C-alpha cells in the first residue's frame, strides 16, 4: 500500500526547546490514526509539521509523495476549536466556502456555482444543512466543530488531519463526529490528535504515541511499558462506559516496583 504521509527522522524546535526529536512516521492509505500523548508532547506540532505550518529543523516529510505544500489540495485540515475565532462575523456557508478558496489571488473573485454546491453538500453531510445562513458566532461548540469539518471536506481532500476534534464538544456531538469520521474513512485517510479514550477504544484503527519522540505506533493495544514511557506513570486507558480495554491487562503493583 502507498504511504500517504512519510515523515523521516524529523526534529522540530521552538527556540531552545526541542519539541519533536527524530520522529519517524509512515501513514498508509486508508489508515485511521489517533495520535495520543501528554500535553506539550508535540502532537499538534507534528500535525503542523506535516501541514508545513511549522518548519522542521531536520528530517524529511512527504505527503502523497510530494514535498509539503506542493501536493495540491489533498489535505483537509480541521484545527483545534479552542484556537478558532468563535466571534468572527462570518456565516456558516461562507466558512465552508473558504475551503474552496483558489490558490491564486484573483481580483474580484467570487465563488462559483459548483463551489456553493459542494459547500452545501458538505454541510448536509455533517448534518447542518439548515444552518447555512446562520452566523458562526451563534453555533454551539459541537456545531462549530462540524462546520470546520465541512470546510475541510469542501477542499475535497484525500487525507483528513484533525486536531482534537472532540475537545470542548458536547457528548452527542462527539458521537456524531466519530460517526462522520468512520464514514469518511471509507475513502479517506484520517490522522487525528486526540485525548479521547473513547475514540482510541472504538474508532481509530491504529495509534501513535508521541512524547517528543514516537514511543509507539501500531494497533490500539498499548503495552503498559509504552504508556509508562509516554506519561511517565502507569495509567489505565479505559474508555468510559465502553467495555473495551485499550491496554492489555496489567497490574499497578507490578509496574511500581
Amino acid at each position, binding site marked *: 500500500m502507498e504511504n500517504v504521509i512519510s515523515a523521516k527522522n524529523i526534529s522540530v524546535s521552538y527556540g531552545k526547546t526541542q519539541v519533536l526529536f527524530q520522529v519517524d512516521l509512515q501513514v498508509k492509505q486508508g489508515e485511521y490514526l489517533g495520535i495520543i500523548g501528554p500535553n506539550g508532547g508535540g502532537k499538534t506540532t507534528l500535525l503542523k509539521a506535516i501541514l508545513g505550518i511549522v518548519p522542521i529543523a531536520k528530517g524529511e516529510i512527504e505527503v502523497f509523495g510530494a514535498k509539503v505544500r506542493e501536493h495540491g489540495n489533498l489535505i483537509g485540515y480541521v*484545527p483545534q476549536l479552542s484556537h478558532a475565532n468563535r466571534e468572527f462575523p462570518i*456565516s456558516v456557508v461562507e466558512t465552508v466556502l*473558504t475551503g474552496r478558496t483558489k490558490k491564486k489571488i484573483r481580483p474580484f473573485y467570487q465563488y462559483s456555482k459548483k463551489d456553493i454546491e459542494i459547500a452545501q453538500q458538505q454541510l448536509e453531510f455533517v448534518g447542518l444543512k439548515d444552518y447555512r445562513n446562520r452566523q458562526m458566532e451563534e453555533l454551539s461548540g459541537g456545531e462549530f466543530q462540524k462546520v470546520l469539518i465541512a470546510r475541510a471536506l469542501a477542499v475535497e481532500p484525500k487525507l483528513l488531519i484533525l486536531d482534537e476534534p472532540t475537545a470542548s464538544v458536547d457528548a452527542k456531538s462527539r458521537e456524531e463526529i466519530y460517526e462522520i469520521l468512520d464514514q469518511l474513512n471509507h475513502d479517506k485517510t484520517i490522522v487525528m490528535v486526540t485525548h479521547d479514550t473513547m475514540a482510541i477504544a472504538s474508532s481509530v484503527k491504529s495509534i501513535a504515541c508521541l512524547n517528543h519522540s514516537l514511543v509507539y505506533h501500531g494497533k490500539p493495544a498499548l503495552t503498559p511499558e509504552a504508556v509508562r514511557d509516554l506519561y511517565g506513570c502507569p495509567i489505565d486507558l479505559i474508555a468510559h462506559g465502553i467495555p473495551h480495554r485499550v491496554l492489555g491487562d496489567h497490574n499497578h503493583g507490578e509496574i511500581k516496583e
Partner: protein
Amino acid sequence: MIEALKTYEFLQNAFIAGILASIICGIMGVIIVEKKMIMMTGGIAHTAYGGVGLGYLLGFEPIIGAFAFAMLSALGIGHIKRKGGIQADILIGLFWSFGMALGILFLAKMPGYPPDMNSYLFGNILAVTHGDLLQMAILTAVVIITILALFTYVKGYLFDEEFIWILGVKTEVLEYILLLLIAITVVALIRVAGIILVISLLTAPAAIASFLSNKMKTRIFIAIGFGLFFSIAGLIISYYLNIPTGASIVLLAVSTYFVFYVFHNMREKAIQKQNV
C-alpha cells in the same frame, strides 16, 4: 451653524473631510479591530511623525514624508514580524518611539522658527484644504477598490489565515497589502484626527458596530454611520463650545463607545439570566 456652513468654505471642506474619513474608518476599522491590529496601526501612525519632521527639515510637503514613513514602517514591521524572533508588540513599541524621536530630531535641526505641530498630532478638520480633500478622496478610493477586489480573500485571511495558507494562498501578500492600506488610512486621516487621535476613529466606530451586528458587511456600514455621526456632531460641538475639533470628535467617539459597552453588558447579563 447652517448659515455659517453656507458662508464658509472651510466648514464645507470639514464636512466633506468628515464623510471621507468615516468611509475609510468604517472599512479599515472593522478589519483592524477583527485582526487585533490596533496597536500596530498606532505604531505605523506614530512612525509617520518622522516623515512629517523630515518634510519640514528638507522643505517638502510633510504629508508626503508621513506617507513614505508610514509605508516603510508598515513594510518593515511586516517583514521583521514574518522573519520572527521579535515579539510583535516589542517591534511596534520600537517603531512607534523611533519614528517620533526622528520627527523631533528633524524639527530641532530645521532652520528658523519651528512650525506648529498640533495639526499633525491632533488633527484640525477645519484647516482641511481643497488639495487635502483631493488627496483624501484618492486614498479613500484606493482603499475601497482594493478591499472590494480582495474581499473574499481578506475575509478568509481574517477568519483563519492558517487554513487558507495551507490551501496554497499567499497570505503574506495579503498581509502586506493590509499593512499598506493601514499606512494609507493613517495618512488620509492625519488632517482630520492627527497621528495621536487617529486610533480612536479607527477603533470606536468598528467596536460599536461589533456590538450591533455579527455580519461583516453590516458592521462596515454601521461603522461608517457612526464615523459620520462622530465627525459631524463633533464638529458642531466644537463650533458651539469653542473647543478643538480633534478633541471633541474623539471625546464623543470614546464616550459613545462606553455607553454602548454598558448597554451591551446589561443585555448580555439579561440573556444569561434568562438562560439560567
